[in-house]
């Protein structure tokens, strides 16, 4: 089991410049400490215009700073929105390769197509076309990384023969992932030989189903690049404290805030009838909740099962259950709009590393 941190760079109101700077500074410190503590990955999302919820609109810049201040942790650029008006594929190939060089080969690339009208409308993008853009994108970037001469005539973009430089530090190239919010996207990932990067809460049963489908599909994949990333990552929240009641009060408060902010985003499917987005993305009814979820507007979204909030024993138990579903890694959100003081976030990470990680690291060693 691998562990990562997943950063949204959420910013508390009022949205002052000092609050934005604080959120970024705390992100950098958490990444640095996660590296020291032995976490495997740090992921940084890409979002635009999602005030309060995520100010991570230039993740490649923050990741360069993280790469410079860390030694071992994987620097994961994801998920990059694969739509040429937001990110031209040539630019993503270039900057990811440069980041890979700067980090001595620690980059991984997550890919996505955006779920909100806030973002797609802001860039004047057609929701119907995002999947086609994404698909073309993930096929060409590995070729740009690995071929000295590349040209392309496609549906969504074209380019004459050029050598896209620099090439990545890793040979043949960094691992690639797909952000999975809608059920079925994990199969898209598997068929392309890409990792499944879960970015929304799922029940144990749904996660197990996801992993089974993914493992089966990846057996007959047609890799988009020169390597296959056969890995399923789940997302979770983390707050670890010796006092489980205290952990619950802090951790569940963070989840509640996250859910409320997440809900404030305007999802494509709410405003734009399209077969391209089958669900309301992160807002799809929580699979941890019963099917006949009450429609009471005053009710909070139910907390998904298996949340990693509690004392070390609670968290070990939850992650062991996640292990049984077949996931290979868990990425944690560790704060939301600076609701938990930075010192407590760091204490939580340290306690997790000291008491929880060994339960999984030793097992890995035994297996090896």
């Amino acid at each position, binding site marked *: 089991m691998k562990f990562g941190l997943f950063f949204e760079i959420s910013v508390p109101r009022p949205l002052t410049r000092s609050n934005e700077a604080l959120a970024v500074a705390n992100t950098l410190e958490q990444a640095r400490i996660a590296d020291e503590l032995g976490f495997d990955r740090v992921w940084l999302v890409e979002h635009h215009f999602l005030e309060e919820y995520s100010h991570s609109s230039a993740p490649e810049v923050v990741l360069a700073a993280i790469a410079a201040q860390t030694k071992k942790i994987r620097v994961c650029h994801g998920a990059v929105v694969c739509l040429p008006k937001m990110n031209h594929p040539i630019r993503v190939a270039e900057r990811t390769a440069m980041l890979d060089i700067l980090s001595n080969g620690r980059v991984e690339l997550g890919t996505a197509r955006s779920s909100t009208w806030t973002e797609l409308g802001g860039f004047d993008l057609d929701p119907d076309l995002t999947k086609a853009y994404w698909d073309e994108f993930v096929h060409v970037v590995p070729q740009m990384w690995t071929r000295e001469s590349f040209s392309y005539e496609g549906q969504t973009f074209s380019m004459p023969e050029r050598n896209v430089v620099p090439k990545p530090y890793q040979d043949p190239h960094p691992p690639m992932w797909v952000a999975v919010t809608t059920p079925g996207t994990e199969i898209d990932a598997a068929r392309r030989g890409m990792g499944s990067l879960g970015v929304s809460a799922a029940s144990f049963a749904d996660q197990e189903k996801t992993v089974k489908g993914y493992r089966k599909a990846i057996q007959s994949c047609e890799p988009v690049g020169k390597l296959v990333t056969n890995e399923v990552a789940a997302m979770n929240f983390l707050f670890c404290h010796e006092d489980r009641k205290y952990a619950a009060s802090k951790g569940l408060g963070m989840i509640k805030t996250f859910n409320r902010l997440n809900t404030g985003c305007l999802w494509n499917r*709410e405003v734009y009838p399209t077969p391209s987005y089958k669900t309301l993305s992160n807002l799809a009814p929580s699979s941890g909740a019963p099917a006949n979820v009450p429609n009471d507007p005053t009710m909070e979204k139910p907390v998904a099962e298996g949340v990693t909030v509690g004392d070390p024993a609670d968290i070990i138990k939850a992650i062991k259950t996640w292990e049984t579903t077949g996931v290979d890694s868990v990425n944690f959100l560790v704060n939301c709009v600076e609701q938990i003081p930075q010192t407590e976030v760091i204490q939580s990470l340290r306690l997790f590393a000291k008491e929880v990680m060994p339960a999984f690291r030793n097992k890995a060693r035994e297996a090896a």
Partner: protein
Amino acid sequence: MLRGTASPAELGRTAPGVTIEPGKTIALGNVKWVQFTYEVSGDKQALLPPNLAPTTPSIVTLQIWRASGGELGDFGLAQARVSCRAGVRIRTFLLQSVIDGAAAATTLENNFGYFGTPGRVVLHERSDKTTVEVISNDRCVAAGEISSLRFLEPSALQHIENMHLVDTKEGLRLMQVEPSIVTNSLLRGPGKLTIFENSFWRLPGRELRKSVIGATANTEIVLSPVRYVQEISEKAS
């Protein structure tokens, strides 16, 4: 997190008086459904009472219904709604409505908190476009068309429940109205409102900015019994 900042007392001055009858269901029959969706300018909090939270951006929809064959007979309804959140639920908040049909207006206002503003709601379907017109007090308060229509699978349409501010015997309340909608066919195309009288639709001083999309559908609608009624907060938390 942002909350609505509109004064409940101010909003409440025009709130429909409602008697909530437990279990009251009304089948509206076949409903031709047309919707224009726009991003709207201005302070997104100011349109909503404190119970509700705004979305980014704020979206205003003008939704037109022409119903036939149901319990209320043939009638038309035009409603303007603004996107919002009730807790973590996706909702819209009713700003104004016009009802074409006196009997329907009385029932929809008294039981479900629609504004029973009288008027004419006209909808024309042509081979290449659908046009609508809403007339109140002999003046056109909204008109528009959806063109270049393209068939989509009905499941591509997401219906969203509405929050209505109503005056009950216990006082002002936010009532959740839950139309149960079966979509039989769906078309989508660029939607353009050529007339939209902002003040009439309770959007004074605001502009409809970016047109998101238009859609038209053949549906069957049942107004389900009212299940959730909230006391209204006095101020933003």
